[in-house]
């Protein structure tokens, strides 16, 4: 039986008191225990940013990669060993700025992993520049006259890219956050969870109070059908993305299931190997 103790590290996170990322950390650890995943069977891959440090606070096989490349790395891990439970996490700059390309392609590729973005609409680690999700007009260190650009919409981006599981959560509601992470981890395929995770130090606009006041809970909304893609697009428009809950879920083949027969059946993660004569002949036959 996995316990919370297994997942805890004796390291104090270097996050500011009140940072939304604490809740995400706690939620991931609790869900892993709830799902009874042993620490050695979890691979937790993160990007660079305040949020990216999260993998170092969990005891599992964890990797803190490069700015924007967490998803690329995490897909490699899962493809190599499908028995692992793979979680990937990072910030809004990491996932929707420098790493946006991988986000779109991971979504359509549908490798079975859970991608959690701690979206604080700001660059936290570099001390407060605007991010791709900062609202237009928001003043930051790199937009002193207000952000001149329109923000990206990660949910519509995920929908358009073919993500098979899309949800949004809020660090201020740990119960729902946990529930969505749990559903994401149980989903077979690429599961994307965007978490409003306030930066209490550099984002004075999108605060806990702001989210508490404005968020609608989709999970409690009558008549909403998360298997309906058109409805999902509409819901994002209607609410201006200010909602939490499961937006969209679809069952479809993962990449491994779509690859040619035999793919991934002998990844040699631990064994050694030598070509036998039959396989050797097969290998060289086209060159003799």
């Amino acid at each position, binding site marked *: 039986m996995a316990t919370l103790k297994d997942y805890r*590290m004796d390291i104090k996170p270097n996050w500011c008191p009140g940072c939304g990322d604490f809740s995400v950390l706690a939620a991931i650890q609790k869900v892993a225990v709830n799902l009874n995943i042993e620490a050695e069977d979890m691979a937790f891959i993160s990007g660079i940013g305040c949020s990216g440090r999260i993998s170092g606070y969990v005891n599992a096989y964890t990797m*803190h990669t490069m700015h924007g*490349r967490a998803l690329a790395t995490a897909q*490699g*891990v899962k493809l*190599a060993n499908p028995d692992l439970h793979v979680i990937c996490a990072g910030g809004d700059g990491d996932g929707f700025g420098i790493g946006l390309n*991988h986000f779109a392609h991971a979504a359509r590729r549908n490798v079975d992993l859970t991608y959690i973005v701690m979206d604080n609409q700001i660059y936290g680690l570099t001390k407060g520049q605007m991010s791709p999700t900062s609202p237009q007009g928001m003043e930051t260190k790199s937009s002193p006259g207000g952000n001149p650009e329109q923000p990206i919409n990660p949910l519509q981006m995920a929908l358009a890219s073919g993500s098979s599981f899309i949800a949004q959560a809020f660090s201020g509601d740990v119960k729902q956050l946990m529930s969505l992470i749990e559903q994401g981890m149980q989903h077979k395929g690429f599961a994307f969870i965007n978490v409003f995770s306030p930066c209490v130090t550099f984002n004075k606009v999108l605060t806990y109070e702001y989210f508490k006041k404005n968020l609608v809970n989709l999970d409690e909304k009558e008549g909403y059908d998360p298997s309906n893609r058109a409805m999902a697009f509409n819901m994002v428009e209607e609410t201006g993305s200010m909602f939490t809950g499961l937006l969209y879920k679809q069952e479809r083949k993962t*990449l491994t299931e779509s690859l040619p027969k035999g793919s991934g059946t002998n*990844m040699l*993660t631990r064994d050694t190997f030598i070509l036998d004569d039959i396989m050797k002949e097969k290998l060289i036959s086209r060159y003799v």
Partner: protein
Amino acid sequence: MEELTIVIGGEQGEGIESVGEILTKVLSQKGFNLYGFRNFSSRIKGGHSDFNLRVSSGREIYVNAERANLLIAFDQATIDLYKDQMAANSIILYDSKSVNPNNFADLPEDALIIEAPFQQLALECGNSIMKNMVAIGMICGLNQHSPMEFKDVIKDRFSKKGIKIVEMNIEAFEKGHDFVKEKGLYSIPLVPVTDSRKMFLSGNEAMVIGAVAAGCRFMAGYPITPASEILENLIKIMPEYGGIVVQAEDELCSVAMAIGASFAGTRAMTATSGPGVSLMQEAVGLSGAVEIPLVIIDTQRGGPSSGLATKMEQSDLTAMLGGTHGEIPRIIISPSTIQEAMYDMGTAFNLAEQYQCPVFIAADLVLATSKQSTEILDTRKFEMDRGKRVTDEDLLLQEAKVFDRFAFTEDYISPRTIPGQKYGTHHATGIEHGETGHPTEDPINRKKMMIKRMEKINSVTIGEDIKVEGVAEDILIIGFGSTYGAIKEACEQFQASGIKAGLAHLRLLHPFPAKQLERLVSMARQVIVVENNYSGQLANVIKQHVQDHAKIQKLTKFDGTLFKPSDILTFSKELV
């Protein structure tokens, strides 16, 4: 006669490639040693391409000959490109439908120039597209090979397209064959010395075979000339061996995917060229910092930027040596023959796991795309050494909550666990870290970690770190990669004229085999470093490691064309 060079050229799409494939298949089966290079000339309108095949009855060859004995021209460009490169008493066959004999002014006087109706004969069989089969028939007749073997290969090749197509192609072949027989044309026949079974393949194909035999089971790549073939070939065959190949969205992803797969324990690689190497640099640094094995093939091509994408260059050496910010351990192996390209993959994956760092295969365009006859794959040369893996039993004894993945040890190499192993959990981060992998800025730890990482590779050797041939008392010629063939033949020509020449071809470029090279340099009167780049990247590296700078002369070439043995002879004469 011991050898023969056949060139066939035309516009792309005229079936030049098929001629090469059929011809080489037959000749390889007969036991000849072959070297084939396909030249794409983007300078000439119409997309000219030609295939240059050197056939040797005995010894192995590693470079094209400087002169052709038989030239088949479907287009004018073939004549223009090769008219100065014809051997004595050569034969030139041209198609008057597409080549104008009025432009033949400066062809060699002793050449036998024959108008051959390739297109006409093909049309008589039903389709002008088969003029390449007519050409094969003519080559077969001229060289007095038995038509049987050619017909078998042609049948094989077209059998999927149905009996009708097979018959048409055979007929075209026969028409070509009859044409030269009726005219009484023939050259002196070649007879192979042995009939031993051989492989005939390109460097790219050799590296693919090598990767599979080495136990690589994950590859991610992004298309780029001339490395795409590696991705395409691996995608075809990897599933048969239980592995996975992914075409990623870019090189940033492909290299990161490989690192992820390697973290999970699989032998993983990527293959790229020029611009892709630039994009991968940050990830190379991560692999070095987190001590995760990684194998990268760089089939170097003309740079910088988009450069000369289909042309030869060896100008990524400094990028491979120094690319990425900060300092990391890395290993660079440079194959110089197709056979080495195959076995180097085994070496690369073993070293990557033993030393837990990135390993580059410094290939180049000519090595990647030219084809050579090579001995049959010897699987015994691929014993997997997975490095310092910790067993589950040992982990159970230790029962550590967090495994010391980056433990300081005597040889600086830390025992490694992989996901799934109980009591092996740890953190891998590009941030400076302590023994468990968790971040620390402590100066004492920092210094120790840097020294551990940087010095762990000092003991690396691939056995023959420098390939030495001949006694280089007068002239020592140094190079790396596919220039080996040209250098080797230059040495032979020096020796034939009484000059004591030898070569030192670098097979391990990093860590640099300085001591051995210093000794070789000190014993030679003259040292020439031959390389395909502008600044003499290899020569500059050598100067960092070898005392006697004045002796070292750079012979560089960066116009996209290949070194010929005569370039080296001429350069050396100018020096004296």
